[in-house]
């Protein structure tokens, strides 16, 4: 079921208020997205925890309603993260 990029961004920001979210619709079908999420709240978290924070924000849609979401997370002004 297609889901607009604006809705993905809204859900992420509702849960991670300082997030900078950029989303690309990879296939132009509203169903395959790549998202980059940058937030200070990711500092000190492993990549897994950062991604889980975004999945939590999306409330169980990833893997279901939202089949294909390539995800990249980062802390502002740093090289992604350290484990």
């Amino acid at each position, binding site marked *: 079921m297609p889901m607009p990029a604006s809705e993905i961004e809204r859900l992420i920001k509702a849960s991670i208020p300082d997030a900078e979210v950029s989303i690309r619709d990879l296939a132009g079908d509203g169903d395959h997205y790549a998202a980059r999420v940058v937030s200070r709240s990711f500092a000190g978290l492993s990549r897994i925890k950062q991604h889980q924070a975004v*999945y939590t924000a999306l409330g169980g849609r*990833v*893997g279901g309603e939202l089949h*294909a979401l390539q995800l990249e997370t980062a802390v502002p002004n740093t090289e*992604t993260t350290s484990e």
Partner: protein
Amino acid sequence: MNDAQSRIGDIVKSNDIVLFMKGTALFPQCGFSSRAIAILDRLGATYETVDVLQDADIRNGIKEYSDWPTIPQLYVKGEFVGGSDIMMEMYESGELQQLVGADA
């Protein structure tokens, strides 16, 4: 711990590198699984795969096991590493090579 969780635990603990995926290494059934295989092959890693499409209990159970909603999922030495996006990031940074002990 239910049956699926203990089966997954056994698989993860008894294989140094194991990828839970859709399809097989030769015939991945999803772009993300295909990408994960391509990364492991590029590393020259020796790995096992589990086709979740062949087993609904594993397919659902693996998401609970790692608290991770998507497949593929890579485990190295008993630890959940991540999905294909994290694999790609770690491959590009050289961390994955170190983790799997490959010299590629």
